[in-house]
């Protein structure tokens, strides 16, 4: 199954030179910055709390050596009270730390997710072609959860435990430097072990996370393609890909566990050995009378109190490495340059938006004056950025002039690049060569936002969003014409009428306020297509791109939509991808796209008569042309 190979190839960057975990994690600073004060305070609180934990054994020592040994009940009471006080302080500080970071950390996670989402929406379509959405989704969910956990524990506790260990070491050395040295002996080998472990674990963590992303992709596809899977019983290669991926993930995770087992084993055994050593030496010193029993108890008690900080370093490092891998994955997406939304202010004179119903100023002017008005493609070439370098560009030399107010049908064999050509106009892709101009303005100088405000598209695949039917339609034009609620209602009614969608929308349970899309009522293909068409015409755009807009409609409805659409098209500069004569007849002229070029332009009848390829496409006779 190529699935696995393909998706992993794309995103598996584990072979890239490994960046150090710290360098990766440092990139998170901008997100931490707003909450740095709280985190800082929380860290101080945590240090304080763990110092108290270290002081408690000292109080115990004082109790044992002093009042207890002296059989002094008053002193014992004093010690008990002190112990209680410290205990209360410790508990409150523990809580305070958590309270301090709870909201800010949830906030950091949310901010990072929102930033990712915003960025993803603004990445070029070519990026989304390249990246499986499961990989992106897993970055927005599991990876960010990992990062939140990293902020909550490893980030803080690596610091806190470091300080605790330092303070503890000082206390130990001060109490009895010889015993202290015995106890601290394993520190050096542990540090070496940790650094070796860190590098290996980081790589494994990254691999596991990428595999989770691939798994998400497979799951997503199996859900989105469920009708096909149902229709054919079972998708075996999909099931196999799933099985292989889960297995691969399992073995990666087991590899991680093996590393973890080593480091934890050492982290447990070495300090225990040291404590044992200190106990034996201490006992000798106590026997020699050089050391009081209380000091030894306190000493060992401190040592035991340090055990958790030392033990925990293993998993804190592991979590930090996972977090570093998650950070890398996150920034891989964030580092992709987003397309600028508003772009450079265009020097060209703004053409005032047309008022409703008024024909374009130049519409009737005929060919003479309008050489650069309308939609003009000159020498446009396009190849997909991820196309093999040796393949010819999909569009080689498109030169086409659609006059203002004219409707041009675009006809071409399946796969000739019609949809790609239409995607260039709203700047979903930018041409690799040549120039497109809208009413005389070079498209490259028009910001994407503005270009998309001028151009409305009805896509081949009529995607509806989880929103009401009205919102789905109005999103086509709402931004460009604010207007009152009434004006919007009128616009909505008009657009629905054009697409012959008014009837079925009115009959929905809540009319145009009915939720549709994935989280609402699911509509039939024909209904979706009509809403998508209404969405394209709602804003009275100056340029209209319709990609096979009537394919899912039955003959009767198609005829009604055509009649209504003709009126809209009579005053709009439009490019209509057409597969059949009925759609072609919406247009004033037809352009034939073949071999990456516009091979012929003319009326339907001219082309039918003069161009055998066109005739073949329209009649289905003599497929030799294909």
């Amino acid at each position: 199954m190529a699935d696995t190979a393909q998706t992993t190839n794309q995103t598996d960057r584990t072979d890239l030179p490994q960046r150090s975990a710290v360098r990766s994690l440092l990139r998170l600073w901008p997100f931490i910055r707003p909450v740095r004060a709280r985190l800082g305070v929380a860290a101080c609180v945590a240090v304080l709390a763990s110092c108290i934990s270290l002081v408690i054994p000292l109080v115990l020592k004082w109790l044992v050596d002093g009042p207890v040994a002296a059989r002094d009940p008053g002193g014992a009471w004093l010690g008990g009270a002190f112990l209680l006080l410290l205990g209360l302080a410790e508990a409150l500080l523990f809580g305070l730390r958590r309270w301090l970071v709870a909201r800010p950390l949830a906030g950091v996670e949310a901010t990072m997710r929102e930033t990712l989402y915003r960025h993803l929406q603004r990445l070029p379509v070519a990026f989304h072609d390249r990246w499986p959405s499961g990989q992106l989704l897993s970055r927005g969910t599991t990876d960010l959860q990992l990062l939140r956990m990293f902020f909550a524990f490893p980030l803080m506790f690596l610091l806190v435990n470091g300080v605790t260990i330092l303070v503890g070491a000082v206390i130990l050395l001060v109490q009895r430097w010889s015993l202290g040295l015995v106890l601290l002996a394993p520190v050096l080998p542990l540090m070496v072990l940790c650094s070796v472990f860190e590098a290996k674990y980081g790589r494994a963590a990254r691999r596991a996370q990428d595999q989770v992303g691939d798994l998400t992709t497979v799951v997503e596809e199996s859900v989105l393609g469920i009708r096909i899977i149902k229709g054919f019983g079972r998708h075996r290669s999909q099931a196999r890909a799933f099985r292989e991926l889960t297995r691969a993930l399992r073995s990666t995770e087991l590899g991680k566990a093996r590393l973890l087992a080593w480091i934890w084993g050492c982290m447990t055994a070495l300090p225990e050995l040291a404590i044992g050593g200190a106990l034996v030496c201490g006992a000798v010193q106590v026997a020699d009378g050089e050391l009081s029993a209380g000091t030894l108890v306190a000493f060992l008690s401190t040592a035991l109190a340090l055990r958790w900080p030392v033990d925990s370093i293993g998993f804190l490092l592991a979590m930090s490495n996972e977090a570093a891998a998650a950070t890398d994955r996150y920034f891989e997406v964030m580092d992709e340059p987003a397309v600028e939304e508003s772009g450079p202010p265009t020097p060209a004179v703004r053409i005032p938006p047309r008022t409703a119903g008024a024909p374009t100023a130049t519409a009737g002017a005929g060919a003479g004056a309008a050489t650069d008005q309308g939609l003009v493609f000159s020498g446009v070439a396009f190849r997909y950025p991820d196309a093999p370098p040796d393949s010819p560009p999909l569009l080689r030399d498109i030169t086409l002039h659609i006059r203002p107010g004219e409707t041009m049908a675009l006809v071409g064999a399946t796969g000739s690049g019609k949809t790609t050509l239409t995607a260039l106009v709203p700047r979903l892709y930018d041409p690799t060569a040549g120039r497109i101009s809208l009413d005389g303005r070079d498209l490259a100088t028009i910001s994407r936002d503005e270009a998309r405000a001028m151009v409305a598209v009805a896509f081949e695949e009529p995607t509806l969003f989880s929103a009401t039917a009205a919102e789905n339609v109005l999103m086509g034009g709402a931004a460009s014409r604010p207007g009152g609620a009434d004006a919007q209602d009128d616009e909505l009614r008009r657009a629905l009428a054009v697409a012959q969608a008014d009837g079925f929308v009115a009959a929905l349970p809540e009319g145009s306020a009915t939720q549709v899309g994935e989280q609402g009522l699911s509509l039939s293909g024909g209904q979706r297509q009509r809403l998508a068409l209404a969405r394209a015409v709602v804003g009275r755009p100056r340029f209209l791109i319709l990609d096979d807009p009537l394919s899912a409609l039955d003959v009767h409805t198609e005829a009604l939509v055509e009649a209504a659409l003709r009126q809209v098209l009579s005053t709009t500069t439009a490019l209509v991808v057409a597969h059949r004569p009925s759609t072609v007849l919406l247009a004033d002229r037809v352009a034939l796209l073949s071999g990456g070029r516009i091979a012929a332009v003319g009326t339907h009848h001219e082309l039918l008569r003069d161009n055998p390829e066109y005739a073949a496409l329209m009649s289905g006779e003599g497929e030799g042309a294909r």
Partner: protein
Amino acid sequence: MTTTTAGLPSDDPEDRDGPPSDDSEGRAAPPRRPGPAPAGASPSGPSPSKSSPSDPATGVPPASDSFARDALPAPRGASRSLLASLLAPHRRRVAVVAVLLLLQQAAVQAGPLLVAYALDHAVPALRAGEHGPLLAVAVAAAVCAMASGALQFGFIQLAARVSQDVLLDLRGRIFRHAQALSLDFHERYTSGRLISRATTDVESLRELLDEGLQELITIVLSTVYISVTLLWLDWGLGAAALASGAPLALLLRSFRHRAHRVYSAKSSAMASIIVKFTETLNGIRPVQAFRRERANDTAFARLNHHHERINGDTLLEMARYVVGSRLVANIALAAIVLWGACRVASGDLALGVLAAAVLYLRRLYDPIDRLGMFLNSYESAAASLHKIAGLLAQRPSVPEPAAPAALPPLADGRPGREVAFHEVGFAYRTGGEVLPRFDLTLTAGETVAVVGATGAGKSTLAKLLARFYDPSAGRVLLDGVDLRELPTGTLRRAVVMVTQEAFLFSGTVADNIALGRPGAGREEVERAAKAIGAHDFITALPDGYDTDVRKRGGRISAGQRQLVSFARALLADPAVLILDEATSSLDIPGERAVQRAMDTVLQGRTALVIAHRLSTVEIADRVLVMSDGRIIEDGPPDQLIADRGRFAQLHQAWRDSVG
């Protein structure tokens, strides 16, 4: 608006997931808001979609809201029994894991005992010039240290194995179950939720298994050890320590209760974020073309803030618990130490015993935080498990037969089979009849075109034949065998449906075609592609048949995708082929190629073809005209045209449009 006569105002009620509400039984509630039901307002308004009753097997009330709220009903204790059934196959290894931990804890907890022994015995012995006891202490300490390290090592690996196997099992169960569930389920349960179940919800179980389970065992073991040791050291101190457990248990209970609530909410909040996320990513073209970015930002921010709020709540619950439990523990510690000190002072207690007891006491209360963390991950996992259990408790509404039947062998080599609808009626479970009872027989080898305005019930007819739904009354028979008695494998080999929606899975073009018949060789794949006229465009792709279709066929045009779907169906070589608007995006040469293929390759097979383009009708032996769920005309096309009925009108309109 095409059909108004009988008030079936919309296109294809059968494409919708919900039932049209029936005038007699207008209880179908609107999907998610509690607004007034449209019942009565219009005789048969199309219906709210999310309101079909949930699975009868679980015996729960209509689940209209459970779908909307992302809370599918699961039987009581379902999440626990799910966890138990996941762990059951690993019973032995779980036991070994527990034993390893037991020994490891014994090794670790020996420390203070050694201290007590060293102070009370080895030191006096040493003073007496006897080295034996100290040597014993040294050896014991070394053994304990090495053992605890080695046991830790073994434990982590074994535990990881158990946890990974459980996750593997669970992921597989969710995946297979999701695929087994019927279409009507998928139409109501959004894909984002399903993804969320299989990813983030499984992830939270992973956290529980990876960290939680070990924590829990460690905590229980160390608590037992320490309590027993304390009791053994000194009965009074031990009892006092145990008594402090009571308030801690109460705290724990209330924490669990509250954590359960917030984690359940959190998992739902996450699922709705995922839904929004996937919707945006999958519709990125329209999102950008219609400049939805800012509106989406706002909508996403709302969902995200909701999640942030709940996320914060979960963290705060934990903070509350930690303060409470630490307070109890530290107060108890102070009290016990004070009491012990007094007893030592009065000579009632040995100093070494108190020293050991104090060390143990600190350790006794150590795991309280960790217990909280365990409960955290437990509640988080329980909330997720509950949702997964709810999903797994769903039964397919088109179940596998209990006693599978076999199809009779094909009669004298003819590839087609006879299809009979016997007294079949179809209505959604909440009422709302789509197809009134009818009888229909398609003779083997016949190509039958179904025409009619949108909303006439054509797709429902097709879906009944493909057994995407079961009829509410009557039987659908394939060569005399009820479809409900056929095992899925047999049914899918015999009946294949190609729909308008041509989804491509990631993988190569060849993979996508081979899906029609797993195990088909490259030549067979190519033969199918050639027959349908897809060979030329496929070979023109960068890697030919091995070209990756990438993300959801982004680079392959809609028409080409439909050709691939056809090739897939052709390769499947079914006895009955159903085409539901399967040629809508094809250009005319493509459509002709398909028709030719049906003429030749599918010769002799039974075909049910739904098409708006009446050109398809030209190859049909017989035409059914449907209107409002009824078959109003039935006959060979020429005869129907001659009869000047509904079909004749449609045909005339089509001829005009072809111009």
